[in-house]
């Protein structure tokens, strides 16, 4: 879908529409529940999390349903954001400038559009891991329904599910760190939808210019 970003009357820029924010938080909420209950089943040292969340039996019952919610949100995001997440020429340059980005030398990072290559990777990582988690998760939901002759499906599922989950944990940790600690304004943009001009100019210059141009031409 097309980017619906625009300049707001108060001089700030709308980065995420209400629908985009809604699906983000739907996926975030379900992911956090999946993460916590998943970690409880991952290690005996973390089993207490399931106890805190109402008991491991409840956690096992609800984990697959939360998974369906997460996958639904992920597919919704795919419909909404996939076009904006396609790889562009500047992405390769951005990856080369990654050390500068990490060291917060943002003036040495190429100008980028609405999303940098890292954010795009996060999106595609979650999308593909989401599919792997869905397919393996359905098998783990009903292991008793898998006939003995097809038991290799169960054997695959028990390894695919944690591997894909670990990959999303890596993405999630970076995403949370960037959004909460590193880029001031990012959290606000996902809660209320808007960013300041300075923020847009500093981190997404091409997108900032595009939004300004469109807003002036519209007037």
């Amino acid at each position: 879908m097309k980017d619906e970003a625009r300049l707001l009357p108060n001089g700030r820029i709308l980065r995420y529409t209400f629908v985009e924010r809604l699906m983000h938080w739907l996926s975030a909420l379900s992911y956090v529940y999946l993460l916590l209950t998943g970690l409880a089943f991952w290690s005996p040292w973390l089993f207490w999390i399931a106890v805190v969340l109402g008991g491991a039996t409840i956690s096992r019952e609800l984990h697959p349903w939360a998974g369906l919610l997460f996958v639904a949100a992920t597919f919704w995001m795919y419909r909404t954001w996939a076009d904006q997440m396609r790889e562009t020429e500047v992405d390769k340059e951005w990856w080369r400038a990654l050390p500068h980005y990490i060291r917060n030398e943002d003036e040495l990072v190429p100008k980028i559009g609405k999303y940098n290559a890292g954010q795009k990777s996060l999106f595609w990582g979650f999308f593909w891991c989401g599919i792997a988690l869905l397919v393996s998760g359905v098998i783990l939901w009903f292991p008793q329904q898998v006939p003995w002759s097809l038991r290799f499906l169960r054997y695959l599922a028990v390894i695919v599910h944690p591997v894909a989950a670990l990959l999303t944990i890596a993405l999630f940790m970076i995403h949370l760190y960037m959004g909460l600690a590193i880029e001031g304004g990012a959290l606000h943009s996902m809660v209320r939808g808007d960013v300041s001009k300075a923020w847009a100019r500093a981190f997404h210059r091409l997108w900032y210019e595009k939004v300004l141009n469109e807003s002036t031409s519209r007037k």
Partner: protein
Amino acid sequence: MSQATTEIRRISGHAGSVPGEGFSRDYDVCKLIDTTTCIGCKACEVACLEWNGYSFTETTFDNSYQTMPETQWNYWNLIKFNEHEREDGSMQLLMRKDQCMHCEEPGCLAACPADGAIVQYANGIVDFQQDQCIGCGYCITGCPFNIPKFSPTARKVFKCTLCNDRVTQGLEPACIKSCPTGCLHFGSKTDMKELAENRAAQLREHSGFANAGVYDPAGVGGTHVIYVLHDATNPEAYGGLPKNPTIPLTVRLWKMPLKWLGNFAIVGGLVGLAVHYLRYGTKTEEVEEPPEQAEQGAKR
């Protein structure tokens, strides 16, 4: 075991040998199933249901004597009937009592994430504690013998307990008690292994079963249920008894290397992010250079 204290050493006013004296009561218990003397009467199936309090379930007719295709959550003991064609074209009816094998290294226990839901006792019995079971079914995947079964009503998993409740009271399992031919034996692993090896040797030397042997698979560390087979080189013929059962490779990968790799990566990642924050801190919107300088900066 509790009954170890009630083992008889001496009894008063008794002529002759003392019952039970000299009988080994090692902690390792073992059930021996001699498939060569099984007549397929299914008394063990009935005894299992009766002792464990399950009613008879519907049977499935598949043109054989077999009660149903595989064990169920409330049917833990099933004789598998197999019409095996010998090399000379004649038919041999193989009958094997199928139930939990009580592995020394149980795949169900390795795969289970619930605290205390699967217990292996010092005597070798592997028992499910349904009050701790969360119904995830990982044990179903961990088992190389297709034994744990999910109950849709209880939403928990059940299997043969080797009559743990009887064994702790010094009784043999219900199936053993019911067997009319004496093809089922119960005792210490050492005794049962010896009995089984002797029987296998007898079959080889006197009954023309050149490949007769004992099934006590090393891949799961040995089992506390062992078989005497007419042909130990072909256990698959006995209703799919696996030749070399092991805990599935992916279960082992998941529970050992992946778990430690994952834990290490998560903790390492958290430390890495903390270090990054201390070293570089937050990004700022303000300090950006004017465009010309930024371009020069990029060239430098």
